[in-house]
């Protein structure tokens, strides 16, 4: 699920700037703490979990959470805590890469549509409509049917399916910014069209998209894990949350910890990213009003 396209209509045409002095709410503190923890897990996993996420010990399979194994052990006796920590990097990478692909494509489509003249606008709108008409997982599934499953495919597929939403927002933002006073002033001052686009329009049009992208990263992780569950995503024994979840699901009645902990990691990540995105959104909105 991408952030709904209409979320973007909340933006006015004023310059976007976060208000640094505002007090943080409890929700924001929790979200930031989760994100920082994740960043630590992604960058220096050895610090949080010194073990090897792939080390097996078949005789210790299916052990319930204990002091020695805080999240228990999986079907091959691997330590679930170590795997969840080491999985952060992979999951975050997929989330970030998919969002980057989505926004990159959206930038091209949105900018061409807004400033490229009638024909280009027509063409990009049609491309957008086609992408829109195959919502989410459907587009990803069709894409996977063509290219075959795997991490790269999953990432691209998720990125592709988020692109049209971003593209619409970028296009309408650019159109709005173009009509604003300071762009008209720049035109009067005789700046070239590319300078105006690069220096004035794009920075202002794109800023809110990055707020939306915060929302998107969480959803991209959720999606990628769904594809792993359907057997089309990350390949085991790699420590990735979605793959761990689907590997643990058959054992849900005997080893709940295999599904619960990676699931909580996904929910915590996606929820924190969403919460941060939303508070960024409302902060920028307060700034404008």
């Amino acid at each position, binding site marked *: 699920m991408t952030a709904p396209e209409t979320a973007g209509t909340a933006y006015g045409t004023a310059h976007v700037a976060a208000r640094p002095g505002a007090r943080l709410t409890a929700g924001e503190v929790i979200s930031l703490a989760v994100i920082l923890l994740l960043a630590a897990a992604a960058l220096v996993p050895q610090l949080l979990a010194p073990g090897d996420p792939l080390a097996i010990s078949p005789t210790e399979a299916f052990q319930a959470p204990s002091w020695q194994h805080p999240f228990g052990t999986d079907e091959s006796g691997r330590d679930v805590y170590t795997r969840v920590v080491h999985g952060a990097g992979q999951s975050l990478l997929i989330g970030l890469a998919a969002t980057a692909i989505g926004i990159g494509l959206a930038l091209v489509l949105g900018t061409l549509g807004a400033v490229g003249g009638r024909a280009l606008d027509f063409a990009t709108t049609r491309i957008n409509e086609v992408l829109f008409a195959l919502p*989410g997982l459907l587009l990803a599934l069709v894409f996977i049917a063509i290219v075959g499953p795997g991490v790269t495919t999953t990432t691209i597929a998720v990125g592709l399916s988020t692109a049209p939403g971003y593209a619409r927002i970028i296009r309408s933002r650019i159109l709005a910014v173009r009509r604003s006073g300071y762009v008209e002033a720049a035109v009067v001052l005789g700046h070239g069209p590319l300078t105006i686009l690069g220096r004035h329009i794009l920075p202002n049009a794109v800023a809110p998209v990055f707020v939306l992208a915060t929302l998107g990263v969480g959803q991209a992780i959720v999606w990628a894990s769904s594809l792993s569950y359907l057997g089309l995503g990350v390949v085991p024994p790699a420590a990735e949350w979605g793959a761990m979840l689907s590997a643990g699901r058959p054992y*849900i009645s005997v080893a709940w910890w295999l599904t619960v902990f990676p699931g909580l990691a996904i929910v915590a990540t996606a929820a924190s990213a969403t919460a941060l995105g939303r508070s960024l959104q409302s902060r920028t909105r307060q700034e404008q009003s």
Partner: protein
Amino acid sequence: MLRWVAAKVAGGAFVLWAIATLIFFGLRLIPGDPAQALLGGPGSQASEEALALVRREHGLDLPLAEQYLLAMGRLATGDLGTSYSLRQDVLTLIGEQFWGTLLLTVLSLATAWAIALLLATWATRGSRSGRAVASGLEVVASAVPHFWLASMLILLFSSLLGLLPPVSVEGPSGLVLPVLTLALPLAGFLAQVMRESLADALESPFVLSARARGESETGVRWRHAIRHASLPAISLSGWAFGSLISGAVVVETVFARPGLGRSLLNAVTARDIPMVTGIALVSALAFVLVTIATDAIDRVADPRLRRA
């Protein structure tokens, strides 16, 4: 208005053609012989004669351009072809599966709406801490993967409590868990959108004047604020419908419900070209229709849009 409708319909037709073309050429790029896939099955080894026969039967021996033109010609007449793996008319198969998915998505959409409305009103009227809890719930609900939620619901309601069946059965009890699985994450999204517009509406001049006229807080809330708060969420219905269809792929697989989503997943793994194309087209068609309908409602409701 007529011109507007004609343009929308032409746009929709273009979308369908583009999807059919993309899938047609895309699926030809994959490694593996479609004739082999047609005869495939665990342990089966088709003979060359059988393969040749299947190729001839399905026109797989013709030049690509000819295959494409034939395929498009058939699609234009509403013939979606015969499923490779199920050996039945695709349109008939989709007809069998369509209603199950439609029922599931419509019920889920309604449930999500009801939950979202409750959450949103609770969040705007409640105390500070109540608001925080409600918005926390929204965020968490919208971040839960469908298949994980489904597993947790089955674990709780079927395995532990024994209240509800874990698979699709006749009657309403079999629908409860699938609908909840689809509705909860969507409700989280809708509630976020609704809460913001509700908060805005409650501050708006007409609500203030209603309060000034001495209307009760409940009256204000239900008569004015909610109606206005719902508008942005209604225009999200097209998007919500799309997200439900993709959620149905997972939910139908987990709960063994017959439907388009599960058929699509099977078709993708079986490389069943006519079936993948057919389901993609039908769901795209449904999406296009829903979008035209919501756009039309918006135009009727808001005259300013007609000039745009």
